[in-house]
């Protein structure tokens, strides 16, 4: 793995305020040693997103504490199997993205990189279709966000996650196009790593949301 295919983010991190071009990584302290995937700023975005979710988890659990039975009964009406399939879909899409990034970064089977991102996109699309089926089924049964607090939180949590997922699908399109471009010319891997990290964040949040909403009794 040659170091010039790595992002220059370590350098950017060591000298955050001055220019980026040509700055050599001077960081040798424990705090800064290591490779920051993508660029430093994307981690503010990702961690900032995750911070929102901590507050959402706390808010959900706080409201659950006040009416545990209502929450348990309502959770029983959710489609656990669809939720499980969605989890598997996102995990599969994540490993595909990992393969795609490795293909581009370490130049192993580079020609398959666009395919990996396209397949990950399809997994994401599958998630969206599942969500649509779930939501429409619940709404037809009368379980709208106005029915009770559980459903309100359910739609809020999964809805915000869904917008992140849709944003992530845009990112996958971008990754697909960069992967296509990489077949012909050299690319910097920083944007690819940043985008991939965002997609993994979407996966990470769902992996926690699934037990929280569907399986908690």
């Amino acid at each position, binding site marked *: 793995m040659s170091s010039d295919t790595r992002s220059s983010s370590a350098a950017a991190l060591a000298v955050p305020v001055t*220019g980026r071009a040509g700055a050599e990584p001077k960081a040798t302290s424990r705090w800064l040693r290591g490779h920051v995937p993508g660029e430093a700023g994307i981690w503010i975005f990702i961690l900032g997103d995750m911070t929102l979710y901590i507050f959402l988890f706390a808010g959900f659990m706080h*409201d659950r504490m006040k009416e545990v039975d209502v929450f348990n009964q309502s959770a029983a009406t959710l489609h656990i199997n669809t939720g499980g399939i969605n989890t598997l879909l996102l995990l599969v899409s994540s490993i595909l993205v990992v393969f795609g990034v490795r293909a581009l970064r370490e130049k192993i089977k580079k020609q398959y990189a666009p395919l990996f991102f396209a397949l990950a996109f399809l997994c994401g699309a599958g998630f969206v279709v599942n969500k649509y089926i779930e939501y429409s089924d619940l709404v037809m049964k009368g379980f709208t966000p*106005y029915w009770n607090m559980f459903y309100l939180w359910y739609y809020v949590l999964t809805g*915000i996650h869904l917008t992140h997922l849709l*944003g992530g699908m845009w990112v996958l399109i971008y990754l697909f196009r960069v992967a296509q471009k990489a077949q012909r010319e050299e690319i910097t891997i920083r944007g690819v790593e940043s985008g991939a990290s965002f997609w993994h964040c979407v996966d990470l949040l769902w992996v926690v949301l699934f037990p929280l909403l569907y399986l908690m009794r």
Partner: protein
Amino acid sequence: MNLKQTHIWTAYTGWIFTAGFLIAVCPLLAWTIPPHHGPSFTALQVKQFYMEHLNRIRAGAFIGMIASAFYYSWGAAIAAMLRRVENGRPPILTYTQLGAVGVGVFNSVLYFFWMAYCAFRADTMDPVMLQSLNDFQYILLEFEVFPLSLWALAIGFCILMDQSERPVFPRWVAWVNFWFSGLVMTGQFMIFFRVGPMAWNGLLAVYWPAFVFFFWICAMSTFMIIALKKEIGVVPNADTQRYL
């Protein structure tokens, strides 16, 4: 007194706006962030709140109105600092920012204006009417967020495009702007709900956007002050070679 010093003063207006806004809305005065009550309060309860806190609410509105003025110099300063990034091309993103500054300030000014308006004759007003006018304040504060999102997007793009030797803002600040842009919008759905986290006293309508908003202002103000003190973006001999 010179221009550099004056510009540094405008950079501090962000802090003045923040401090003034927070003092105005805190529980000691207007008590709107964190909100004293929610949409589920009855009209009589709302009237009682106003009766018990009348002059405090008025004082809050007064301080807030003065603080709001400092918002536009801050916004103008950011746009001016980032204008150099669009050098050579039409300054579209700069103008977008300036337009958004207008909306943001309008938002803030009208909010405190309305607060004052509610408190003006609250003692003799019909409770139902007072409740409705009170709702207006919160809807204004929390529902008009998307214009700010676009503002931050324009700033973020300008920062990312800054390829100069000494960029005005560090690159990662663009991502703070993108984070703000995407996540301050959770309050946009408050119009659909009167209970829960999306109600106008809820987690997603008040607390989270307030946190994101003030983090953003603090980050941008800090780096603007640093950049102005280092005279980033200033042409050499700017003070001696004046226009005639």
